[in-house]
């Protein structure tokens, strides 16, 4: 998680704990906010996960390009960025370059989604 601390562009190293092999074309990471020039898609201060994103953003200053987000959910399809964000407890997260997991609270009635993620070269 080194380089991901702080919430502002000048307060963060701009690194993300993505899963992918070395030099992968796309890196997969849990999305805690919309990314753009100066903002990474994942940040340690995030409290909700809005999906799992294949990011091509190389360093925060180049922004994103040609991205897709896989959004899990339960119940009715939540279409907006805000509505689809699911809370999670940081204690359920496990980060590594080859595997990421987290438990997402789908709804107090609908229970928990266990999301596990890994990635290959493309």
């Amino acid at each position, binding site marked *: 998680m080194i380089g991901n601390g702080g919430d502002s562009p000048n307060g963060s190293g701009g690194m993300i704990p993505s899963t992918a092999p070395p*030099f992968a074309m796309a890196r997969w990471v849990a999305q805690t906010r919309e990314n*753009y020039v100066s903002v990474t898609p994942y940040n340690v201060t995030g409290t909700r996960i809005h999906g799992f994103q294949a990011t091509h953003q190389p360093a925060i200053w180049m*922004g*994103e390009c*040609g991205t897709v987000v*896989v*959004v899990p959910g339960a119940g009715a399809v939540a279409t907006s960025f805000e509505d689809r964000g699911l809370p999670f407890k940081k204690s359920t997260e496990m980060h590594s370059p080859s595997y990421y997991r987290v438990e997402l609270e789908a709804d107090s009635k609908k229970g928990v989604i266990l999301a596990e993620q890994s990635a290959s070269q493309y």
Partner: protein
Amino acid sequence: MLEITRASVMGSADPSNVTYPSGSVFVNASSREICGSNPERQDFIIGPNPAPSFAGHFCARFSTPFQEFGTVQNGTLHRDERSRNGTLLSGYAIFANNTRAVDVRVGSSFISIEQARKNLEAEIPDGTTLEDTARRTRAAWAEKLDRIEIDGASNEQLDVFYTAVFHALQVHVSGAAFL
């Protein structure tokens, strides 16, 4: 749901300054795929070349049959629709009520959806488990990080060092054999 195109923030000064890239989504219940193309490119304001054909293409294949599917545009669901072009675009699939687990594998490409599908079939073909992929990716990292041996550092220093090597090898390089 797969979000294909979104409101894209231009520049870093003002998060409310957005453009709306127009892409396409294809939902195929018989092959259990949601595929699409997103031409979003936030660095276009920096360089002189507009790259009008640029897009990121994706092919997502699900392990579980779709009970319901469709497209989404600007918040409106279009049930049973199999393709759509435009802005603020997504594809969705809903699975049966008693579904315990859904596996989804996504191939990506800068060339086409067909190439994204080929990459998916080449790298993580049907039957590959998440654990298989994680193990292979972990081995790929070990091969790089194990090239460096360090004596006499504390655990914290080792964390900092190997994280730095990880960061240095994270970002993609161009010129791969096929994209």
